[in-house]
């Protein structure tokens, strides 16, 4: 277990600044997920923690020691890559023990660590196989095992599940969470998949354009997004946005909308954007708002009903068997206590 601290980190690749003045502190034993769209710099950030990408300025501290100029192998990290990156000519066992053999670890110790990792990841029967003889899920397990035997202070994951099919991804995701519970090591995990971020993270870092947009627990980031980008990136169907205005009393009004959202601060009258998550839109006869059904998506255990209200298009989750026809006019209510309000200009949370 170790903490990781990044201070005023700048990364420039090919003359282009990728990461600008980034500060980040990862607590010991934390499962931190870096989440963002492709090209947001999250992978570059992870590679710089690993020492695979040089930083232009700033400091990287791992376990209280300044590691900025250290070689990847000296940083006490284990890393798992998206493409598995297994050595194709070596057996599973040799793949896992390669780093230890380089470090000159005694044979008995190598044996002990490989056996332990193999047992944890159900690889016992596959130790003599070559990577080409393994399935995708098995390969990624070997890659995780290779990181485990290093008994690193910090584990780095670079989109490790993106190459797997949906079923395997969910399976391995649960295994990773269990692994973190068992080991209690610090883990930093890069993904663009919000489900992985929500389910695995103790804290999520949402990134865009090389800068951190918000850091918080999954629930915090989901419920109280710091700006419109974070609000729109997390959640499926996405949060709906309604352009309107706040009056001096704090009442939000827009075309077809009129409600009194709960807020922390009380800013003056100004144009604002209301953000509504699908689960906070309820279709019911005594609802104060009116909308037209445009589309119904049955999902099995629930259905998503899309409503047009003024210029806004809202999704609503319906958990019963009621039937709605496109074009039908329905009454609905919005949970005013749980909506988000954003500044119309900056997009920041009000």
């Amino acid at each position, binding site marked *: 277990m170790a903490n990781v601290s990044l201070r005023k980190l700048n990364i420039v690749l090919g003359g282009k600044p990728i990461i600008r003045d980034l500060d980040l502190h990862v607590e010991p034993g934390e499962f931190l997920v870096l989440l963002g769209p492709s090209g947001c710099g999250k992978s570059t950030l992870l590679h710089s923690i690993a020492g695979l990408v040089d930083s232009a300025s700033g400091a990287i501290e791992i376990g209280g020691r300044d590691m900025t100029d250290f070689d990847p192998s000296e940083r006490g990290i284990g*890393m798992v890559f998206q493409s598995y990156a297994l050595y194709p000519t070596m057996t599973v066992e040799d793949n896992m023990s390669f780093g230890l053999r380089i470090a000159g670890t005694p044979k008995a110790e190598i044996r002990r660590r490989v056996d332990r990792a193999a047992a944890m990841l159900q690889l016992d029967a596959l130790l003599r196989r070559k990577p080409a003889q393994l399935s995708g899920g098995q390969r990624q397990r070997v890659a995780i095992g290779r990181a485990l035997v290093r008994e690193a202070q910090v584990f780095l994951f670079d989109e490790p599940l993106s190459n797997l099919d949906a079923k395997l991804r969910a399976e391995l995701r649960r295994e990773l969470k269990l692994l973190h519970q068992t080991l209690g090591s610090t883990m930093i995990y890069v993904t663009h998949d919000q489900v992985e971020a929500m389910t695995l993270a103790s804290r999520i870092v949402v990134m865009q354009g090389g800068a951190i947009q918000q850091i918080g627990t999954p629930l915090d980031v989901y419920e109280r997004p710091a700006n419109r980008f974070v609000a729109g990136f997390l959640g499926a169907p996405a949060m709906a946005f309604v352009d309107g205005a706040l009056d001096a009393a704090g009442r939000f009004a827009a075309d077809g909308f009129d409600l009194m959202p709960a807020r922390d601060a009380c800013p003056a009258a100004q144009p604002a954007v209301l953000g509504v998550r699908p689960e906070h839109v309820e279709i019911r006869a005594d609802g104060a708002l009116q909308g037209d059904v445009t589309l119904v998506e049955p999902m099995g255990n629930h259905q998503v009903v899309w409503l047009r209200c003024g210029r806004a298009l809202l999704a609503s989750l319906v958990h019963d068997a009621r039937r709605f026809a496109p074009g039908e006019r329905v009454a609905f209510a919005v949970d005013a206590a749980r909506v988000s309000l954003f500044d119309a200009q900056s997009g920041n949370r009000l």
Partner: protein
Amino acid sequence: MNPRTIVPPLPPTTAAAHRREAAARRARRRFTPARIGLYVFLLGAALFFLLPLYVMIVTSLKSMDEIRQGGIFALPHALTVEPWRLAWSGVCTGAACAGVRTGFWNSVAITVPSTILPILLGAVNGYALSFWRPRGANVLFGILMAGAFVPVQVMIYPLVRVLALAGIFGSLPAIVLVHLVFGMPVMTLLFRNYYCNVPHELFQAARIDGGGFWRIFAQVMLPMSLPVIVVAAIMQVTGVWNDYILGLVFAGRDNMPMMVQLNNVINTTTGTRQYNVNMAATILTALVPLALYFFSGRWFVRGIAAGAVKG
């Protein structure tokens, strides 16, 4: 109910009729005019290339008297292997008359190090250029590639001077060094392109595992380079074995390769021309590259598909 009773099998007569019809359709397709034209062309091309080889083989098995009677396409009346024996161990290759045998072993002595060293150097170059990306790697690679387009003849005189200055002109190390220099651009290109298709993450994983420059090369990259090594070996062996001018200039009197000795046998200006011996000596000389292509053609194609063309 048994499913077999629901769907009865096709009556045998109908099935046989279907088979006959299918066979007839295939036959019709096989003998379209275009097909026939194609086969005629292929057969003609094969004959065109095989005829000289046929003439060489039959001539090498005839006595000189029989050759003088003419009829170069005729099969030998009295089969003799004497020309082959002479070519291998008796014919004059300049001052000495010990056959092309000495040349064969000279060529082996030149070809083995001139294949292994350029491959190793090319592999290291390609590996360094693809993964470590030293400052100015692209410029360096560009210069190396430009070197591949300079004709060998242009560099002979300067190379002679340099090697003479170094005191190794006209020796085995000299000819190996020359082959190393001329083989390097293509070898580097071959390996660089191959390694460019290896995921960079593999290299990064090895770095995290603590591998240095040489360990990653020897334990991770080289073992997975077998296809491209085979291609490189074929190219280099063929090139070095078939080389005439470099061997003539740089190898020195004691290391004359087979190709130079073959030329001495055939271009002799004294005595009668022994066509049968010449043919046998030529076939003997061509045997090594011929066998190489014959046995490794499969690898050659695979290696080209694996990395020599892509990137």
